[in-house]
């Protein structure tokens, strides 16, 4: 067994730049990609849709997304050597595959932009009141661009490096808010019509956006068969975290107040007192630490769009795709005058490309791949 570990080690060191990642690294990748601006805005939209049972809806839609991850893994294991666009072409044929690849590219592009915009707005609100939005977004985007050019291995190693810090932040985050909450705000349970649950689950599932990156990074995974478990565990962690945050928000503010807030999570942070009070206003500090989560999401999306873009355009150099699409991301991020506009765009995205990207597409891919497998088997027989 020892020698086995040694061999693995030797593989890692012998090809230092093989640009592949291990199963656990995929878990970390998914975890930090999905955690982003979603958590800042999620409670408002979910509570609007499902009121008291928002936490239940969040939990269920998180568990639902596990199924999609499972499907993605199933397909990815089989087709990992073809790459994302290659798999699409294999399953849907050349033209349709390229088209879906293009849709994915645009999806990542717009998603990065929205992520950046919401980040810029919140940073402006809580940290840098006088700095123009353009200058808040630019450095983060530039760093992400330079970083993404280096390939997936440096990205994942960076993720690994910050993971302990991130866990530390989250633990503090949760501990801070446990005491002062009024859990009677959560009652009554199951007060909505069943159809409303379905609708709100359909909406909430987009708070978990980001795990579609899994389909893209499959060819960069050293052992594709070992991915399923870490990816699902990562998603489970996110589901729990989101549920916990929603419960806290509801317990602290109640339904009516939560619905009127733009960033309920930040308000929650704001409303807490740090015992000992060396830090008076936590939300600024929290926002600063939250930049890490935003950055990890942005870099993942930028990397994802570079991979998909290069595949669609049959370019071997991903670097050029990044350089070319960055101004586009920057421009899209600056569209719209207010947060409300941005939310409108993001809702539109949610309803169209996101639904397609991580609900319909994995299902389709899984079905077609299963059918093809069956057909192959019958041909052989």
């Amino acid at each position, binding site marked *: 067994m020892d020698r086995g570990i040694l061999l693995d*080690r030797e593989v890692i*060191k012998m090809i230092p730049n093989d640009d592949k990642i291990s199963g656990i690294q995929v878990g970390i990748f998914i975890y930090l990609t999905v955690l982003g601006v979603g958590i800042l805005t999620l409670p408002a939209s979910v509570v609007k849709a499902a009121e008291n049972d928002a936490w239940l809806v969040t939990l269920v839609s998180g568990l639902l997304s596990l199924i999609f991850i499972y499907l993605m893994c199933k397909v990815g294991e089989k087709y990992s050597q073809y790459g994302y666009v290659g798999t699409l072409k294999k399953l849907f044929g050349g033209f349709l595959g390229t088209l879906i690849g293009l849709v994915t590219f645009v999806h990542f592009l717009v998603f990065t932009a929205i992520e950046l915009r919401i980040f810029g707005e919140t940073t402006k609100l809580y940290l840098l009141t006088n700095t123009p939005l353009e200058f808040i977004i630019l450095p983060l985007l530039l760093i992400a661009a330079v*970083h993404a050019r280096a390939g997936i291995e440096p990205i994942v190693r960076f993720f690994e490096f910050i993971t302990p810090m991130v866990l530390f932040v989250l633990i503090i985050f949760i501990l801070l808010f446990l005491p002062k909450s009024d859990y009677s705000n959560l009652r009554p349970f199951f007060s909505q019509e069943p159809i409303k649950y379905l609708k709100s689950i359909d909406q909430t599932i987009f708070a978990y956006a980001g795990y579609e990156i899994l389909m893209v990074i499959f060819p960069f995974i050293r052992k594709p068969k070992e991915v399923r478990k870490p990816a699902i565990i990562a998603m489970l962690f996110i589901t729990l975290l989101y549920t916990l945050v929603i419960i806290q928000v509801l317990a602290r503010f109640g339904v009516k107040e939560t619905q009127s807030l733009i960033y309920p999570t930040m308000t929650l942070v704001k409303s807490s007192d740090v015992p000992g009070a060396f830090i008076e206003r936590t939300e*600024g*500090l929290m926002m600063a630490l939250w*930049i890490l989560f935003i950055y990890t999401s942005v870099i993942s999306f930028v990397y994802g769009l570079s991979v998909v873009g290069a595949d669609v355009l049959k370019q071997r150099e991903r670097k050029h795709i990044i350089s070319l699409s960055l101004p586009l991301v920057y421009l899209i991020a600056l569209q719209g005058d207010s947060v409300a506009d941005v939310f409108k765009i993001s809702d539109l995205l949610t309803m169209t490309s996101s639904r397609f990207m991580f609900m319909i597409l994995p299902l389709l891919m899984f079905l077609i791949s299963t059918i093809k497998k069956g057909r192959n088997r019958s041909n052989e027989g």
Partner: protein
Amino acid sequence: MNLFGNNKKKQLTFEYIPDAKNPIEEDIDENINKIKSVLENCNDIVFRDFKIGGVEGRRSFLFYVDGMADKVLINDFVLEPLMLISRQVSPSYEQIKNFLVDAVKSSALAVTEIREVETLEEALMAALSGDTALMIDKHNKAIIISSRAWPARGTSEPSSETVIRGPRDGFVETIRMNTALIRRRIRDPRLKVKQTQLGIRSQTDIAILYIDDIVDKRVLDELDKKLKKINIDAILDSGYLQEFLENRNITPLPQVQVTERPDVVAAALYEGRVGILVDNSPFALIIPVTMTAYLQSPEDYYARPMIATLSRWIRVFAMLVAIIAPGLYIAIVSFHPDIIPSKLAISIAATRATVPFPAFIEAIIMEVTFELIREAGIRLPRPIGSTIGIVGGLVIGQAAVSAGIVGPFMVIVVAITAIASFAVPSHEITAAVRILRFIFIIGASIYGLYGIMLVGICFAIHLVSLKSFGVPVMAPWAPFEWNDFKDGLVMRISMKYMRRRPEHYGPRDIIRQGGNKDDSK
């Protein structure tokens, strides 16, 4: 091309070219002429012409560097047997003159180490290294008598890495003593000490140390490649060599570990790393290195595990403070005064009310002054050094504040930063921290806390992408490895449970403590 007439008189029969191979002639006069012409104007060389076995005996000739060779040894155990004793005992010169050289080698030279060389260049190089070259007429080889002995500093406590508990011996400038210090700690025939010379003119001795069945051969290969590429006139210190071994030079962070302590090198060798000793330098190099190794003190392993863990926490904290404290202060004062308690914010604002500069300028003034004091303090001889302390303490601590140039809080921040930066055990890292601190100050003064995060992200990306001989510098943190993390940046478990060598150095024999049968090797 003779510009001066007098050059014509002396005809050089032989010119020294490194790596040339001029054979030693049988005729001793020719050899003497050649050597004397090469070593012309080298007044530190001693030439001795004599005859073996009395006035009728064979002509011989030896030369050595005065001060580098052991004169007593040459007089008593080389010259005396050859010149005097050989006359008085049998067999006489007449009886053995046909196999004189063999007789001299086997029964006249009473020294432990002799060897024979065939070229003049080798003989010269040996003599210049402190050995004595002996040439005998009608013999086309030179006998090299090992006679190296020069005034050397005795081993003393390493001043750059002191410990309270642990061995007090440090490396010295003589490579032979240094290898002995390590050999004393590793009595294993598998400890290899491979010696080569580097530097065309300096011909500095370099020793590469490793334990043969633990070390990762790829590291050795890479080292070999890098050493072969070096073509420099002189290596004066291991610092010269270090720069040739690092992959990336545009980084504040070192990719080679530097130490003055033989126990640190020995511990590294046992982990499967490679030590490099350079003659004339009391600093050994160790490759590959990780950040963990840099933040460790040898004392961690001599103290009890809990205490060692605590001091590692303190060191990591100190490094963080040393890097970001001034930046954080600027960010809070000029961008986010609402983060700190309002009373504190008010008192900071009150003390800064008379200061005419923005926090950024204030910080730069203080940091630059501090760097000046520190730089001056290193250069000054010790008796004057305390003057700097008084001047620095009084002028900066007191006068600057009362003159209203800086606020007292800034003084506190800079002082804490300074203390924290000295708590980091490695001088190399302390130096890197100085640069980083200024970058964080700039970031904070542009973007506040966001700027600190941005610079932090950039720095983290840089850290995780650095590699030292194929090993990521941030291992075992990123990439994470639990086995190695147990003795890593923030914790040290008991020796009892450190059963394996750190995996990230890629040791071929991973078992440190034998337990079950197939483990022990």
